[in-house]
């Protein structure tokens, strides 16, 4: 077990290196430059050139990458915080500490001040949505796959297909039209700001609903497929011909086997919910992580993009770890090979 953890940790670090370097390299090709973006459109070209010079942006890619890495590991001071630049970028944590993601040129604040709040907001959204998606899709998927071709199966399958194929912006607009414009029960935007007159929880309802609809349609179909396959296995016939009632056959013999295949897919939804829900966040003006990544990418805020990439990757690799361990737990053939 210790070896397993060590191997996984090593591969995590390696992946993080590779990914952060790739992001660095790719942002090279974005049109404008950081100096211009930092100083704004009204700065003189000569000022931009000076900043460009001072930041060492003409250095080769590898040099700049190692500089960024040094800042992150707390080995080097963040060049943007140098008072000599006159930018007045100040990090209350100091300019040299481990985990210093640098200064966001977009938000004009340390990345660490921006990113965690955004992540928390998205985690709340994702957590609630995930907590609803999993039981809902398991129940519906098992009910549908239990009797392939039955009326219930067809109904649930059609629901699944419709729910997945309606894009988030469409279902978002539809729900807004119904509950905000029509009934006036819920707020149309979710800035997570109690000052708007709506309690925070009411602001969560619609974004969560959109995510649950969209994502559970997909997961339901996965679970249904796996369940239908398991119900055709000879050991289910064994259970039925033992004289077990259908309920016990399903609960004791089928469900656990039917969970094995979709388990990985279900955990992958966490990644989607953390960084892939840009559309929902845009529709509801939700101050989330996905939207922040989009803004940062459009602006070319490399420090923020790098930080977001590293966080998203870490989450992805951790869920993969959980899914491997859980897979082994569900499947004794892996656990006790």
């Amino acid at each position, binding site marked *: 077990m210790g*070896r397993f953890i060590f191997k996984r940790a090593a591969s995590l670090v390696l992946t993080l290196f590779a990914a952060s370097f790739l992001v660095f390299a790719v942002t090279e090709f974005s049109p404008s430059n950081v100096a211009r973006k930092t100083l704004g459109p009204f700065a003189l070209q000569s000022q931009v050139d000076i900043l460009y010079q001072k930041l060492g942006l003409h250095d080769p890619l590898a040099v700049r990458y190692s500089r960024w890495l040094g800042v992150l590991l707390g080995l080097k001071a963040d060049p943007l915080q140098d008072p000599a630049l006159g930018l007045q970028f100040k990090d209350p944590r100091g300019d040299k500490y481990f985990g210093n993601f640098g200064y966001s040129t977009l938000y004009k604040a340390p990345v660490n001040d921006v990113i965690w709040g955004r992540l928390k907001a998205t985690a709340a959204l994702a957590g609630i949505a995930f907590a609803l998606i999993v039981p809902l899709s398991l129940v519906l998927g098992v009910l549908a796959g239990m009797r392939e*071709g039955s009326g219930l199966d067809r109904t649930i399958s059609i629901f699944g297909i419709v729910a997945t194929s309606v894009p988030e912006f469409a279902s978002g607009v539809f729900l807004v039209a119904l509950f905000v414009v029509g009934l006036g029960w819920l707020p149309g935007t979710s800035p997570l700001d109690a000052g708007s007159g709506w309690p925070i929880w009411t602001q969560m309802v619609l974004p969560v609903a959109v995510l649950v609809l969209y994502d559970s349609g997909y997961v339901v179909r996965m679970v249904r497929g796996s369940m239908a396959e398991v119900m055709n*296995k*000879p*050991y289910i*016939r*064994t*259970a*039925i*011909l*033992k*004289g*077990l*009632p*259908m309920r*016990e056959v399903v609960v*004791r*013999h089928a469900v*656990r*086997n039917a969970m*094995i295949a979709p388990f990985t897919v279900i955990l992958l939804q966490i990644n989607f919910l953390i960084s892939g829900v840009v559309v929902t966040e845009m529709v509801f003006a939700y101050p989330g992580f996905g939207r922040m990544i989009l803004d940062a990418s459009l602006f070319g805020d490399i420090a923020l993009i790098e930080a977001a990439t590293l966080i998203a990757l870490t989450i992805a690799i951790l869920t993969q770890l959980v899914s491997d361990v859980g897979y082994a737990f*569900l*499947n*004794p*053939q892996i656990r*006790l090979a």
Partner: protein
Amino acid sequence: MSAAVDSSFQTPAPAGRDLLVLDHVKVEYVSSLGAVTAIPDLSLTIRAGESYGLVGESGCGKSTLLMAILGYLGPTGRIANGRIVFDGMDVTKADAAALARIRGRGVSIVYQDPNAALNPTLTIGRQLAEVPMLHEGLDGASARARARRILTDVHLPDPDAVMDRYPHQLSGGQKQRVVIAMALLANPKLLLLDEPTTGLDVTVEAAVLDLVNELREKYGTTLLYISHNLGVIAKVCDRVGVMYLGDLVEEAPVEELFARPRHPYTRRLLACVPRLDSDKHTTTFLPIPGQPPSLGSRPRGCSFGPRCAGFEPQRCGMAPIAEEETDPGHAVRCVRWRELDQFESRDKEHVAPASPSAEKVLEAIDLSKVYELGNAFFGFSSARQLVANEDLSFDANKGEILAIVGESGSGKSTFARILAGLQDASGGKLRVLGEDLSRMPASRRTMEQLAAVQMVFQNPDATLNPSHTAGFSIGRALRKFGIARSRKEIDSRVRDLFAMVRLSPHLARQRPGRLSGGQKQRVAIARAFAGDPKMLVADEPVSALDVSVQAAIVNLLLQIQARRGATIVFISHDLALVRHLADRVVVMYLGRVMEMGPVASIFAPPYHPYTEALLAAVPVPDPTVKQKHLRLEGEPPSPINVPAGCRFAARCPRKVGAICDNTPPPERDAGGGHMIACHIPIEELKAVTPIFSADPGQVS
């Protein structure tokens, strides 16, 4: 026991009341294309306490019948007519609750594939204990105690440990014992066995059959045993029914059926079964022409009519054939059963086997294959070795059939793979036509070397590319070996090859999906002979086929071999088949040669103790043959980290002492090219009684 068997057919039904009555049962499968009849009209009575066997080839409706008895035909199947009365209750009219009471408690079933029949995510203990908890309302602890007791009854060593294991941690034979235990837990009145030993090794099969017989006596359970294997049926059943295309064509007590088969199908079936007292020189299999029609195109009148040599349209092809009683307890559905001898003969087309020459074409010298296991990356020791082949030394002459026999894990397929160049040997030499091919993978062999050694595999479904036509596969081999180039030339060669394997040429344009198993194997043989090989490696080429198809393929192989003079390395676990077609036999166990010699010498004393046990386990399709009772303990051990001495020492019933564990056995010469690797001297091995003795006067 013999008295019970005799009385049950001499005077009908003294043993018990009727436990299961099938009365004009008709089973259909309904699809969007309409209804297809699987069983048209079947009546059958099984009395309490008897053991009834149903034989028939695949697709004859045996399994459908079992599922109908259990009321489990799936969403498409239905019982369209008739009654199935079990213990006074009509299964066809039972509701879900009544069915649940019958299943498990009244009728339980042992399945063909124990690997699939057990739930992979539940421990054995849980799967067993839920039966008494359900049927008898026992609490968890007493249910487990019951489960433990039944595991002891099926002779599983260390039942407590088995209860905590998952199915994948048990061997195939152990799993089948668990399935049998599960079926017996609720003490059912009727036990259905659906090919319970198919896929198990022969020694394991024999032990499972012993167990079935033993448990039957202990619990008095009535058995309905279905199998395609007549030898197995002869071993465990009192009465036998023969099924063909959903019809029960013949029914008789077991000795009666084997001694006096009255239906042409039964006769042919028996003539297709390899026997241990005859071989290719004395007997030729008599295959059944054609193939069974699909269920949708059932012939009028006698269902066997289109394939029967004695078919007379006026008498056989008009109306369904009625059942006639020929002797007490012996019923047959054939209007011509009195005239059978006029149109059925044993040796119609005699196949003259090839006679081997003295030219050596294959020579294995100390050939070994060792797999190093273990994680080399982290520097952990690679002390684990899997010895698949060790010091194999034997040879084969031109035109000879050399059989390699042994149970799973004996390394026979590894040898075949080295010979075909699919794997490298790790030591020794393998000379084919004088050239050493032991470390010559197929990719490095010359065209001549490739063409010289060709293979036919066990599973024809997996060998032929499903997206190419049969003719294309053969044509490609012809092109590759440079035998034919132009389209015309290739087409004519393909036609010749198809004629050689007796396939109609229009099948060359079919994809494998539209061919039957036997046809596919014929295509595979035609492909192998496309390059005119000097040597054919046949790895279990007929073990996935029905016995009548197997007979035809074996005849075909013998014919082609006689004409082409090729050497055949025939790998098989079926000793009766090997007895029929081999010239010489190599017996392997855990990667080593235990015994080898001319075929007749292998099947008579002196035996190697392992060969002796194998022969004692063979199911003989003749209830009058007496077979010595000899069973091996346990199952073949894993080939990882094998013992230093004799490989067979751990299971050997004639183990001499510590010398067997520590010293490799000497290769003793028993004369006439017969070698036995054993510490026991030849004289002593000679002194054993033969395994088989025909004794028509009485039953064992």
